């Protein structure tokens, strides 16, 4: 996993609540056995006018001009502004894989679905929870001004708007540490091999049927 670096990037607004992971990456693309290449199919059903299938040349497909992420002003966006309960539904990690592949490194919303929220951190994406009022304000500012960018500083846990306003955000200290350092948490867990073995020995006496 790459280290999370401070970024100063274009913001794209996706003004819908309850965006589910089926919408972020439709099921036909889950047949892949790889982790990469999902970007062109992020939001496939909203993004294109035809029906997408794996193996199509996406550059030749008719694009939906009304879908907000297709507007030229949001090209190259790395911050996605979203509404409540973003990432609900299926646990498919293909959703953060697709968003990352599409270029998004930060997602800001008033709330996230639990599994998606967790999956983001495992892939170097920073999901930020802000109050509904603050998210409303960012939607208004983003839509009002073309080229609207935010500076996202994970170390300082602060977002800076073009007007210089600083918005603080919370992040779990362990997850912050892993993101800042690009750490693989399997390696971290394996530092506790002795604890895991000790637990198993104790548990096998208490509940032997779990080890039969």
């Amino acid at each position, binding site marked *: 996993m790459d280290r999370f670096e401070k970024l100063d990037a274009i913001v794209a607004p996706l*003004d*819908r*609540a*309850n965006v*589910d992971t*089926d*919408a972020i990456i*439709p*099921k*036909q693309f*889950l*047949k*892949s*056995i*790889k*982790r990469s290449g999902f970007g062109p199919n992020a939001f496939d*059903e909203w993004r294109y006018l035809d*029906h997408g299938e*794996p*193996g199509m040349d996406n550059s030749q497909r008719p694009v939906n001009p009304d879908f907000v992420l297709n507007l030229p002003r949001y090209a190259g966006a790395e911050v996605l502004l979203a*509404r*409540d*309960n973003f990432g*609900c*539904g*299926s*646990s*498919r*990690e293909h959703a*953060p894989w697709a968003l990352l592949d599409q270029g998004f490194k930060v997602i800001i919303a008033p*709330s*996230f*679905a*639990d*599994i998606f929220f*967790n*999956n983001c951190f*495992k*892939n170097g994406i920073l999901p930020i929870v802000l109050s509904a009022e603050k998210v409303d304000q960012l939607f208004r500012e983003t839509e009002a001004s073309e080229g609207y960018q935010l500076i996202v500083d994970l170390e300082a846990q602060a977002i800076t708007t073009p007007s210089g306003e600083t918005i603080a955000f919370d992040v*779990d*200290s*362990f997850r912050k540490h892993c993101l800042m350092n690009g750490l693989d*948490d*399997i390696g971290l*867990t*394996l530092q*506790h091999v002795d*604890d*895991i073995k000790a*637990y*198993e020995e104790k*548990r096998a006496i*208490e*509940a*032997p*049927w*779990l*080890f*039969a």
Partner: protein
Amino acid sequence: MARTLYDKLWDSHVVRSEKDGTALLYIDRHLVHEVTSPQAFEGLRLAGRQPWRKDSVVATPDHNVPTTGQSGGIAGIADSVARTQVETLDANVKEFGMTYFPMNDVRQGIVHVIGPEQGATLPGMTVVCGDSHTSTHGAFGALAHGIGTSEVEHVLATQCLLQKKMKNMLVSVDGEVGAGVTAKDIVLAIIGKIGTAGGNGSAIEFGGTAIQALSIEGRMTVCNMAIEAGARAGMVAVDAKTIDYFKGRPFAPKGAQWDAAVEAWSDLHSDEGAHFDEVVHLDAASIEPQVTWGTSPEMVVAVSTRVPNPADETDSVKAGGMQRALDYMGLKAGTPITDISVDKVFIGSCTNSRIEDMRAAATVVKGKRVADNIKLALAVPGSGLVKKQAEEEGLDRIFVEAGFEWREPGCSMCLAMNDDRLEPEERCASTSNRNFEGRQGQASRTHLVSPAMAAAAAIAGHFVDVRSI
């Protein structure tokens, strides 16, 4: 100190805790299917790691398998991309020597149906799977939730998950439900009340007399959809029905170990006076058969009512979402639910494909014929063993005589990864769990209902109150 069921399950699985509350949680059972595991096995291989406890894994292909012609095995999967994924699972479990129910094994089926059926998921266990509907297994006092592929790899490599404890939420459904009202209606009513984000950050315990009155299968239906209320984990306390359900199952403990297990399981309930961060009450008697009208499971109403009007909603983001849902679903506000006609009917999925569901649907269609406007009615049992039992009871003949297709087990039209899908703008009465845009096929229109309600819609050609027939 009085503890909740979730507190007890959590406490008994913590390997170590950090000061900030992050814990290493030990995982007893890891269910694996073909869609969310290939990248995890690949990651293991690339890092030169071995699975920590191969015997904790039970694997089966379910999402991609066709529901016809399974006798052809993997080679019979026409879609080459899907076939590669099933072949990859096959190769991975063989390489590492894990318990596997492949296509054509009578024990194969939807991972959340076969786990309990085999006794491979048990009370008191921690259960994970790279699938959000893992919450199903909480129905018998287990701590069960879905995980992403990175966590699948983490559990394979370490037998643990890094977790922070969730909040405790109690949803108590009190009183008795009326005739024709099922577990599916109860859980849809709960989601309608608390919303799809209502359980975010929480583990939900479902309690109250109406939950206690449900069979274990009905409790699985309720816990299955905890994730649709935003909660990764749903659970129900262990009682005598739970113990009876597991007795004699292939992977369940035997002899003295069974007795010891039963004794341990008897503590799997919330203590009197245990603290819940949030408590929600529903009156069982007021719950009617439910039908979703929109593109989120919280967009649900009683069958006797009408499609709601966005103009009545004060929250502008919500009203916008409702209007978008109506446009997508091709519905007008104010339409009586029973005036909505359907094109296809799907009885199946990890929510409603167990023997009890098949019986409930068969009871409704027995001796009748599906309506002329129904293009396809599918009955898809959740496992090879459910299929076998249903056939022994003659349910397959009842379905076929009524004009249904009786299929082979798999996830099927719940998420339409195989050929079972809706064409654009087709409308389906479905016993599955998600009515999201595109879920059952591009531009598909899904209405979530109980098996009896889906069966009744197949016969009438439109939604109908199952209590009236």
